[in-house]
């Protein structure tokens, strides 16, 4: 007996060692690939690897437009990479329709899902399945140059004072000036950050209020060429062409604002971080997103979402990463790196109550985060990519003085033709 016991012990320990070895080798290091343009992606990936040492996430950085192209080519041809798919909120449906995203219903803890802001939760679902969780949250706000406003005799809005577009137009006209009479304004009144994308311009018709897409998620005729739309975009055209308060051309609005050449500037809350880290040399402020007098308040916002490629060789690990990147812990990393606030309702409340955020400029984050309830998701359609691209053409043409009704009519026709293929 006694003799055999050490032997058995020896055998047992050998067995344990072997098991441990197989367990270790079974946990082969996995490398996940992720194509994205997001600042902070490396930091989130690194934190994930701290918790899961056998999984590394390779961040393939590309530019914003190229994220979409890379997805189209890779997912469209059934490639196994990227394992983790970056999905802009409005294309969740489009990718879902094509079968490019794995259902994550069972992969994300229920309390995490419940914590997301409603609009973002809605955007992550297609056909009743959770396909792509949101990773942060954003909203558009109105920035203004207080010094220019003062010079023009305008009282800037309070941090919780939501101007109407009528007020904005009036202020913009007062702000715009061409002191040296060279035909180019020294100061412009108003400009949008993404001046030719539906993302940014959606509230202009929507706040009237009017629809931006038919109830079937496909029809645009009678909607984007309606009288309401023509009215909304005649205003947009006038800003550039008759009132001459908004510049044409491709100079980025952020640069004009930084250069004290733009009085009012509507753009994403993520610019706050830019203006704090590379300080502006004038007094500036942030106010809630404008709306039409008597209309509804609607604010562009939403987030990038992450999904899992169904052809990935590591779907389980990829889903685990997506769960982490959309958690509140990752939410804090996203905020620290570039100032987008978390997708989690609870954290937003904490955020607003944090004494560190009571004073300007950090107060600006609270103003922006306070827009969360007004954020309207972009039109939910499987044909979003076509819808967006063709409308961008139209908005650009309207800026440049093309006839509004005619341009919107043509755009409606072009989008309808593209939507036909989804109707079968």
């Amino acid at each position, binding site marked *: 007996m006694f003799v055999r016991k050490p032997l058995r012990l020896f055998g047992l320990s050998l067995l344990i060692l072997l098991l441990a070895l197989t367990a270790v080798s079974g946990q082969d290091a996995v490398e996940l690939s992720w194509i994205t343009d997001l600042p902070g992606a490396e930091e989130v990936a690194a934190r994930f690897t701290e918790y899961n040492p056998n999984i590394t996430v390779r961040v393939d950085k590309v530019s914003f437009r190229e994220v979409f192209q890379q997805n189209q080519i890779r997912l469209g041809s059934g490639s196994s990479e990227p394992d983790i798919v970056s999905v802009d909120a409005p294309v969740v449906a489009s990718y879902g329709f*094509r079968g490019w995203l794995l259902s994550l219903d069972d992969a994300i803890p229920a309390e995490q899902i419940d914590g997301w802001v409603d609009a973002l939760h809605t955007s992550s679902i297609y056909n009743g399945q959770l396909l792509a969780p949101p990773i942060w949250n954003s909203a558009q706000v109105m920035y203004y140059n207080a010094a220019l406003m003062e010079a023009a005799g305008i009282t800037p809005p309070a941090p919780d004072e939501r101007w109407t577009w009528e007020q904005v137009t009036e202020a913009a006209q007062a702000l715009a000036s061409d002191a040296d009479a060279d035909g180019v304004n020294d100061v412009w009144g108003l400009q949008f950050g993404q001046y030719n994308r539906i993302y940014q311009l959606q509230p202009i018709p929507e706040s009237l209020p009017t629809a931006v897409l038919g109830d079937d998620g496909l029809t645009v005729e009678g909607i984007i060429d309606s009288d309401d739309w023509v009215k909304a975009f005649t205003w947009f055209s006038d800003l550039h062409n008759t009132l001459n308060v908004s510049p044409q051309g491709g100079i980025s609005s952020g640069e004009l604002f930084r250069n004290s050449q733009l009085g009012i500037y509507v753009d994403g809350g993520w610019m706050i971080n830019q203006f704090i880290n590379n300080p502006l040399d004038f007094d500036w402020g942030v106010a809630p997103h404008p709306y039409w007098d008597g209309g509804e308040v609607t604010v562009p916002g939403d987030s990038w979402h992450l999904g899992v490629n169904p052809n990935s060789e590591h779907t389980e690990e990829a889903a685990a990463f997506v769960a982490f990147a959309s958690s509140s812990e990752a939410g804090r990393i996203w905020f620290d790196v570039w100032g987008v606030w978390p997708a989690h309702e609870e954290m937003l409340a904490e955020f607003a109550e944090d004494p560190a955020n009571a004073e300007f400029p950090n107060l600006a984050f609270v103003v922006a985060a306070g827009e969360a309830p007004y954020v309207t998701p972009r039109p939910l359609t499987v044909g979003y990519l076509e819808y967006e691209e063709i409308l961008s053409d139209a908005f*650009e043409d309207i800026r440049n003085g093309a006839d509004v009704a005619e341009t919107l009519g043509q755009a409606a026709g072009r989008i309808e033709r593209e939507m036909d293929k989804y109707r079968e």
Partner: protein
Amino acid sequence: MRNKLRLERWTPAFFLAPAIILLIVFRYIPIVLGFEEALYTNSLSLAGARKFVGLNNFIAVFEDPVVWGSFKTTMVFSLVVNPLQVGLALLLAELINQRVPGIAVFRAIYLVPVAISMNVTAIAWGLALDPNYGLINGIIRTLGLPRQPFLQHPSQALWSIIGIISWIGVPYWSLFFLAGLQGISSDVLESAHVDGAGSLRTFISIKLPLLRRIIAFVLVSDTVVNFTLFAPIYLITRGGPQLSTHLVMYEAYRRGLVYGDIGIASAIISVLLIVVVAFVAVEFIVLRPRH
């Protein structure tokens, strides 16, 4: 000795095989695959699953006014830009072929755009042509002339694009002509001079005919490059304003990589391929050396 002869029989294969195999695998097989892809659609089905649709994608190319419009715009663009670039490149080559002091410096400067990528060029020129803040409008105003919209107006946008690509294209092609001009023996030019021919006469009746083969080569290459022009459209105008710069490659890009419809994108490219080959064939026939 017999061994060596046998070896010699395989020499051409040995020299040729790498190039021919690589060309077939990486140039010709993709062309065939592209034509095949045009017969399918995979944009609406599950990833990887494909549906045979016959010639539907080709029919769509001719029926869709935007696609068809892009072919028409490309045709007009090609008919303007190719002769223009070849003509200007010839003149530029003649200019830098002058034997005057300091010419080497100018040649070196003119060579610079050749090395610059389209990305950088597009960024610089997109800004230079801005209606409000652009360098060019600054100069125009200094001269007391009215501001121009350039890329902002359908009547000027395509011309502006032609200008931008010629900033690279003209110096590039002029290198070929310069080499040709330098290869013309001085005896020929000497005798022309003795006969009392002026520089214009010499250029037209002596130099141009001698450059015939280079002109054909450049014209064909330029045609191919411009038919498939993409980067400046993608980076600067995105086809606008009012589709005035909407060239075929940009439409194919949109269909394939924005809308995700690889089938119709392949059909567009297949049709473009046929058009390019036809164009090149005509140019070869017109410019073929007559002996």
